[in-house]
């Protein structure tokens, strides 16, 4: 077979399959998503009573204060930034990331255990001492950073460990909080696959009495 004929076939195959798999297929799927499953296809966005978008049911948010159930530590601070001070332009695209620290890396140990230094600026507080100061019994998920830096969940154990603190700051009964935790726990698929997780954003919205429904 001549070389020109081989090249012609290669180019024609390239273009024909491109139209099929890279144009028709994606646009058909976008249409299916937008027409049949608009809520999911647009990111499971949560809206408040005024109809403003306040987050996504699938994406976590940073919570570190003692008024809210705290979320997991995140290497990108949950893709957030102050619009006045966003040199890295996080808000232009949104980001995700992980620490990628190996178990043997001393930086991981320092981040979790803390590291004293003569110069207080160089000292690292450490996740475990920080949690202990806040009156929370440390659990693994609260000291390790997540895979995506956007993990919407904490373990039920980590949520329960925060009950006394929230009950104190919000003047609520622990039983009320336990109920809220149960209501905002995403269970395993069919009760079998995956691990149960407490959706921190939805739980904290419920704490504020905001509800937050998927649009």
């Amino acid at each position, binding site marked *: 077979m001549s070389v020109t004929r081989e090249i012609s076939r290669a180019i024609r195959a390239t273009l024909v399959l491109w139209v*099929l798999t890279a144009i028709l297929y994606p646009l058909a*799927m976008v249409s299916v998503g937008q027409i049949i499953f608009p809520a999911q296809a647009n990111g499971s966005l949560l809206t408040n009573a005024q109809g403003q978008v306040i987050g996504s049911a699938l994406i976590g948010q940073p919570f570190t204060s003692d008024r809210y159930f705290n979320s997991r530590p995140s290497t990108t601070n949950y893709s957030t930034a102050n619009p006045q001070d966003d040199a890295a332009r996080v808000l232009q695209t949104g980001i995700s990331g992980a620490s990628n620290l*190996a178990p043997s890396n001393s930086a991981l140990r320092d981040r979790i255990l803390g590291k004293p230094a003569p110069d207080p600026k160089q000292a690292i507080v450490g996740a475990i001492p920080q949690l202990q100061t806040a009156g929370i019994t440390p659990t693994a998920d609260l000291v390790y950073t997540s895979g995506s830096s956007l993990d919407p969940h904490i373990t039920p154990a980590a949520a329960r460990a925060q009950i006394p603190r929230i009950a104190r700051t919000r003047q609520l009964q622990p039983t009320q909080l336990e109920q809220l935790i149960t209501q905002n726990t995403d269970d395993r698929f069919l009760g079998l*696959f995956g691990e149960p997780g407490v959706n921190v954003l939805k739980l904290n919205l419920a704490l504020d009495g905001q509800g937050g429904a998927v649009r």
Partner: protein
Amino acid sequence: MLQGWLQIGLTLLLVVLITPVLGRYIARVFLAQKTRLDPLLAPVDRLLLRLIGVRSQDGMTGWQYARAIFYSNFAMALLLAILLFNQSWLPFNPTRLTSPTWDTNLHTIISFITNTNQQHYSGEVTYSYFSQFAGLGYMMFVSAATGIAVGIAFIRGLTGRPLGNFYHDLILAITRILLPLSILGAIALIAAGIPETLAGPVLVPTLEDPAVQQAIARGPVAHFEIIKELGENGGGFFAINSAHPFENPNGFTNLLETVAILAIPSALIYTYGIFANNLKQAWLVYCIPFALLVGFVVVSAIAEYNGNPIVNTALGVNQAVNLEGKEVRFGWAQSALFAVVTTGSMCGAVTGMVDSMMPLSGLVTLSNLFLQIVFGGQGTGTAYLFAYLILAVFVTGLMVGRTPEFLGRKIEKQEVVLASFLILLVHPIAILLPSAIALVFPDFQGISNPGFHGLSQVIYEYASAAANNGSGLEGLADSQPSPIALATGAIPSPTALWWNLSTSLSLLAGRYIPITALLLLADSLSRKQPVPATAGTLHTNTTLFTGITAGVIVILGALTFFPVLALGPIAEAFQLTQGMR
């Protein structure tokens, strides 16, 4: 802990149940037997063939088949290059991204045309929606279909049939297997919560501090996600791949994605059984990768469950799951299962960061990349498995003094040279040689985790490239600054340039040399006169022979790479148990 083992077991059981169904279907498609989709798709196939200018009966020799792959893949890579270098003015670019550095584009093109999807970039800050769905998503179909075509041509040759026509096989792999399954999977994934939109990111005020805003990246993810798994591609829409809640939000999507990764490479072994009319042998061969898979999952899962001894001591417990780089919804069991499945099958998607996993998980993931047959890549994994079988026939033939024969065909010098060349030589050369160079020049390394783990990072990167896997120990500084970072004053780094260029060579060597060798091997086998079985014939469909093959695989794989494993993950494991003194 029991619940974790239960979900791992049920997931693997599902894979085994799918194998005969999908394997039989794939065999019917490529044996030109009737399938239920014929009335709908036969006209489509005919139209595509006519547009390309191929008559389905145009048979190809091994060399012609390989040449058609080179020409077509080169044309496809050129198309991708045009899209990536011009993304700044092409449509569907809501985040206004300009083109990344030339070496990032070059590495990405080679990485995606070779079915590897090694990513030296972060999706959401580097490539526009159009570059992703019309460029990278396109590669996911054609590179996976190329792999399936090679696998089928190899099976045809092995069973004494003509190899077929590459373009015809390529089209069938897409229209009959990848595209229908992707459509079903994409719809299921959208329903389960994965976005599928052309709209840009959403900005929301955070609940705790409304002055701080969160940017929620979105995109046409679901359709991309399913072909990413089904085609053993592994290139994530977002930087953090299947750990991102928008790529893999819950237990259902994770189950679907895990099973999708294994579905085709495992089914192809059954397809072989139908082609060879020898299902017994197919199931025996199936046991080899399956047993390795189960063994590796057990090792990794126990390591992740027990966790990091240093942190456990600080937490004051004996055991706490190593959740660094893991998502709560997957936990230790699903994270370990996914890591082993994705590295064994050459998918390369991740739900947890392999760099932060325990050393024994590093050991099994690296072993997967070295062996390449724990179901292995799309089409090529099955072909490698049978190439190992041919080597085992040769070795046992030598040991017992019988003429080596496989399926009634004599294994002679050319077959042994091709099989041993493609298994024993290309893979180690493409991994160890560039690793040695990188380790000599500290400026090239970009190692982020010091000590023994640093060696693992370098070896893993080349092993992932040469095996066309695409996962990585992602702490390694292998990425150039994103277009956004470049616009705000970042300068390209020589370390990233080294990684982009050197892994490109491993990617190409690990893809096209073995494919050519496999096709030539299949060609020469298909031309041999069958020899009638006699009392002296070595039977290959026995448990004993399968066991010997497994031994050959482990010995060949382990002996070549064991020194590296000893100095990397094994040394790191000892260091951790010693309490990091």
